């Protein structure tokens, strides 16, 4: 279990393929022998086996499948508070999507989503990789320190938001106090439209570093030491070793981290709601925030669903990239 998510899922794919291979063979062998009593026993056993997966299958259909389908249908309906009283949700075709795309907030929200995602991932990845490389070295307390580094990731997001709101407070936050003490003027981190998104990205980088360190550290552990020993003989040490040994061998894990990072960052909601609620002056509106506010603040569930469907499509695109990257990683 040293290999991190990437390793784990790579293994899944490998064994998944392998076992499906044996599956292909098993039934053909079984069928000719399966006559009379034996086949009935097999059927009963198959039912019991299915019983193991049934609750999970049911849950996934109800809590993941149904919501996706429901979002698609809702996005073509006028689904508002009224619907909950009358039960009526008239079909309106693409009207909700027209509302979404012609909304003044659509372009800013899309742009903010992109900036938030790219900024967060770039920061998390670069710092995460640096820390992973640092912690690869075994030294006293290294595994303890690395474990403690997980804390920001395990805290409830709303707790992190509250804490950072106090740190970033314009008048009495410790960050501006620190800036003041070295003669710089305070920054209105969360109250100025021009820096709010930057501040939110900063907080999200802090939250995402542990995840990146963990996965990248797992990837580094899987690079055989012999490669470095051989490289050292050829004079590849320090930066050269990183450039020619670490990076190429880490590439598959890097792709997985980045793609997963995108999928998990574009849907971030808690942090933004906790820090800025989409403000000031809509400076931190993203697609996820729009979807939430349309549905649960304006009670325009149809429009909210249209926003979240855009989110699903983007996630799905990256999910496909993820699966392809993952498969390629297996092939290599």
């Amino acid at each position, binding site marked *: *279990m040293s290999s991190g998510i990437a390793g*784990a899922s790579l293994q899944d794919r490998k064994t*998944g*393929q392998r076992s*499906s291979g044996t*599956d292909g063979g098993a039934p053909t062998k079984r069928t000719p022998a399966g006559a009379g009593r034996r086949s009935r026993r097999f059927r009963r056993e198959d039912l019991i*086996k299915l019983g*193991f*997966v049934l*609750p*999970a299958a049911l*849950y*996934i259909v109800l*809590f*993941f499948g149904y*919501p*996706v389908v*429901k979002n698609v249908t*809702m996005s073509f309906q006028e689904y508002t508070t009224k*619907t*909950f009283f009358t039960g009526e949700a008239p079909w309106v075709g693409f009207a909700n999507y027209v509302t979404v795309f012609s909304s003044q907030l659509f372009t800013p929200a899309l742009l903010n989503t992109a900036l938030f995602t790219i900024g967060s991932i770039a920061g998390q990845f670069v710092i995460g990789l*640096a820390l992973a490389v640092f*912690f690869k070295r075994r*030294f006293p307390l290294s595994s303890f320190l690395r*474990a*403690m580094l997980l*804390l*920001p*990731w*395990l*805290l*409830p*997001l*709303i*707790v*992190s938001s*509250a804490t*950072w709101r*106090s740190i970033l*407070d314009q008048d009495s936050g*410790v960050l501006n*106090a620190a800036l003041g003490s070295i003669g710089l003027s305070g920054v209105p981190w969360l109250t100025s439209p021009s820096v709010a998104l930057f501040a939110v990205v900063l907080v999200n980088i802090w939250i995402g570093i542990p*995840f990146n360190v963990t996965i990248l550290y797992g990837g580094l552990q899987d690079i055989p030491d012999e490669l*470095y020993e051989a*490289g050292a003989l050829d004079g590849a*040490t320090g930066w050269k*070793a*990183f450039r020619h040994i670490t990076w190429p061998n880490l590439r598959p894990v890097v792709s997985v981290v980045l793609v997963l990072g995108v*999928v998990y960052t574009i*849907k971030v*909601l*808690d942090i933004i*709601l906790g820090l800025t609620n989409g403000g000031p002056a809509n400076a931190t509106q993203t697609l996820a925030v729009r*979807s939430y506010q349309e*549905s649960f603040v304006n009670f325009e*569930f149809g429009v909210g669903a249209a926003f979240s469907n855009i*989110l699903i499509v983007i*996630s799905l695109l990256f*999910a496909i990239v993820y*699966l392809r990257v993952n498969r390629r990683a297996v092939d290599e």
Partner: protein
Amino acid sequence: MTTTSIVTGGRQTRRFAPVGPRRHRGDRRHLGYTVVGVIILAIMLFPVYWMVNASLQPSGNTLTGDFFPVNPSFAGYEKAIADQGGHLVTSLVISLGTVVLSLAIAAPAAYALAQFRFRWISIALLVILIAQMIPGIVIANALYSAYNDLGLLNSIPGLILADASHAIPFAILILRASMQTIPPSIVEAARVDGAGHVRAFVSIVLPVSRNVLITAGLFAFLFSWSDFLFALTLTTTEDVRPVTLGIYQYLGSQVSNWSAVMATAVLSSLPAILLLVIAQRFIAAGATGGAVK
């Protein structure tokens, strides 16, 4: 960050130097790494320290506290417990419920995906991976109207069911990864002795998988404890209010009392902090075993 990269650059040079002479010089250098590591950790965990520090400052609407809680005041905690004590209990009940439900659903499925030879295993795994990527707001949008019809809004079972969506795909994936390593022979031995699949699962697979079950359970607890989205969207009254929503309410209305906000934040962080200290082994296993949130 620059210091880190400089250090790492140097570190690698040394790392690949011949083993002999390195041993002697090593100790002091290793301590140097420890010092750098502690500094990195201190920077990363500064916000957590600041949360604790701010929670111990005297009540007030400003944050101009000292760098250390020289005269710690527990007024923030008194207010936090008076306001949010009930919400903490609600969160605890929901989180424990999520642990039970998630493990009950995920463990048998994980075993089946690990050991039974279904033909559609790769498809099932794909579905689980994709399920994990579905944005929470999508689920909330749809569940709100369904819950409204079923009377599950503002209910603890409703939140447990929804929160399990944070935990179940993850639990299936890490449980399966671990259950794949169980040698089929020990299960088969039991089956030869006449135990059915269910008996074999309960009396052999579950005990053997104790550690990974603990890991999956701890993460189910933390995911549910941290849930904010479902608390926000699937409750409309004060009847059932997890503490995450309590903090959000504090932030919205009443940042006039920072020490109470931060005291609530500290209390809500306790599970994560405690588990990281006492159950580090299990948390680390989960984090490296496929933890993606």
